[in-house]
């Protein structure tokens, strides 16, 4: 499926999404090869079985195909939009199938373990960099990320599960993301 459309591989996500919005199937194929490995990995991290992850990825890319026209590059980076579409769908599946992963203690190696060798364009060095940034977070900050993002709990329920006042959860979440952002910039 590469061949003559190899030049598409050199395009950025924004340009590819614009092509998808115009009905270019090959552009969707490039985005699939670029992001499906990460979406499958996210599905696994969120506790979905292998067949469920495949179904999810299929549905996510169909949604990307149908929703590409609604994407506004002025508001959101294309990568963020794509991953948000994927995460949103995965959370729906996790909630509907009650397949939440067992809560991991943030300090457990599995929670933010060292990634394996890279299979994608993102590259294992980048993942190592991000892992270092994640490990720079406090255990409490990693815990809110775990419950909110990987377990997919809405914030009210997450606060109850963690025994935190909602305000504390909100401030801790902001701090976690800002520290992650700073750690990535500093790196």
């Amino acid at each position, binding site marked *: *499926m590469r061949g003559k459309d190899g030049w598409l591989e050199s395009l950025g996500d924004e340009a590819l999404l614009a092509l998808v919005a115009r009905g270019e*199937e090959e552009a*969707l*194929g490039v985005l*699939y*090869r670029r992001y*499906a*490995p*990460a*979406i*499958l*990995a*996210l599905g*696994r*991290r969120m506790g979905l079985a292998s067949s469920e992850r*495949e179904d999810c*990825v*299929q549905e996510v*890319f*169909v949604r990307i195909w149908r929703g590409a026209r609604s994407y506004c590059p002025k*508001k*959101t*980076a294309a*990568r*963020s939009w794509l*991953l*948000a579409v*994927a*995460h*949103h769908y995965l*959370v729906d599946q996790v909630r509907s199938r009650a397949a939440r992963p067992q809560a991991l203690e943030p300090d457990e190696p599995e929670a933010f373990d060292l*990634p*394996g*060798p*890279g*299979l*994608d364009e*993102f590259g294992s060095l980048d*993942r190592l960099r*991000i*892992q270092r*940034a*994640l490990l720079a977070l406090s255990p409490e900050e990693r815990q809110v*990320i775990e419950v*909110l*993002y*990987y377990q*997919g*709990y*809405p*914030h*009210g329920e997450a606060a109850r599960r963690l025994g935190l006042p909602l305000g504390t959860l*909100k401030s801790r979440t*902001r701090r*976690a*993301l*800002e520290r*992650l*952002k700073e750690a*990535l910039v500093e790196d």
Partner: protein
Amino acid sequence: MEIGEIRELLPLYALGALEEEERRAVEAALEAFPELQEELRALQEAVDQLALWLPPEPLPPGLEERIRARVRPRRPWLAWFGPLAAAAVVVGMGWVGLQVWDWVRVFGDPTARVLTLQDRQGRPIGRALLRPDQRMLLVSSLPAPPEGKVYQAWGLDAGAPIPLRTFRGGVVLLELPPGSRGLALSLEPPGGSRTPTEVVGSSIN
């Protein structure tokens, strides 16, 4: 919502941790406070890393093709045409089968008659199977009619020949008028005539 409240919700929005109603409220508020868009963008980029740092999974064989098959535009008429054509063929074959079976059963009917047709020189030109309900299956060995002519069938009883349908040869389904016991064939101009022009043969029994 005040801008402060929206700002407070932005990290949760970026993490996809808001309820649907809150999510919509944030999106509506972002239209009113575009200055928050840049802050949200930065938060989203941080959230992206939570997916991207995970060890990627290999692509399952055939998954890309399945996705492509789902998004590929379908031609609605083409999607309908296949099943409709198949249904029409089945119905058509069923109808033909019933017709054939209907006539096959006539051979076992002792009240059915077989008429032999001869030309004016006494040579056989065909046979006709006549059912008790006066429907008739004519099988003739007539040559193709001359240019500008057609064959026409006639019902024979005690009076004048009764005009029936026109045809060009081969197998023909006819319906004899009540009381008619014989059949004649003639050559006529296209559309047929009210009285026979050139008789080419008739039944002899």
